[in-house]
């Protein structure tokens, strides 16, 4: 049994329902949950992996996916049984969610360009000595 999260990029017009409809149309035995960030899918390992490939092929850079450790609705994580509040993993999701539109945009355009970053050099000792002599 494997669980996967599918997170939809903020700038995409894709809705969780569209993804669910597509997955249902594939006719596999899966447990699917609609969430605020996308969907969660649970099922046999090979079925989930196969679905991931197909979803990625169909929606390309609009959707991102990761393996989730806890099963869907697990009492140790589900807010329904924990009395509300954010699920512990949401801090990470919130942080990465901000970056998804940019990553999605770059992947769609296929514009992969490296930039030469100049490493910041430490200040030269002579300059430091001169500044100290002048000011002290």
């Amino acid at each position, binding site marked *: *049994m*494997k*669980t996967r*999260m599918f*997170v939809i990029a903020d700038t995409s017009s894709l809705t969780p329902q569209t993804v669910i409809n597509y997955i249902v149309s594939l006719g596999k035995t899966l447990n699917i949950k609609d969430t605020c960030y996308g969907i969660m899918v649970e099922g046999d390992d090979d079925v989930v992996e196969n679905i*991931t490939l197909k979803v*990625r092929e169909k929606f390309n850079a609009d959707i*991102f*996916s*990761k*393996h*989730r*450790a*806890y*099963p869907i609705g*697990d*009492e*140790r994580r589900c807010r329904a049984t924990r009395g509300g509040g954010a699920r*512990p*993993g949401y*801090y*990470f*999701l*919130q*942080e*990465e969610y901000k*970056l*998804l539109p*940019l*990553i999605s*945009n*770059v*992947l769609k355009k296929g*514009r*992969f*360009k*490296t*930039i030469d*970053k100049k490493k910041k050099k430490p200040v030269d000792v002579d300059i430091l000595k001169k500044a100290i002599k002048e000011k002290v």
Partner: protein
Amino acid sequence: MKVFIYPPNSMILQDLVERFGHTPLALAKEIERRVNDPELDSPPMNITDIDVKIGLKYAAIEVPSGVRGRLAMFGPLIDEAEAAIIVNDFPSTFGCMACARTNELTIYLIKQRRVPTLELDYPTNEEEVEDFIARIKNFLEGLK
């Protein structure tokens, strides 16, 4: 190839590694094994005293048990790694990576493995994102 990602719970890294045709070694794999273990004593906890002992393989006895417990999860992934991607300077809320000593030891262990490693800075704007993805793509394609 199996690529260890750091931070090990990053969705972006996990997704990019899969997109470019490799297997990511992410934290979920280790946690899943623990949370689905019927022998687990206290269900809300991921780490048991056995993990703290396993952590001794990766850190000395003087190291706090919390660090050893975390390393008991990261360690087996690092042992399995054939390559690694390390992202530096990520925001403090970027995943449950708030233990600085564990982070230092994790990077040390990756470097000790002497596997091909790519080190990057966490991107903040579009230009940096382009560079970030391009470097990951080139690195992963070079592994084939």
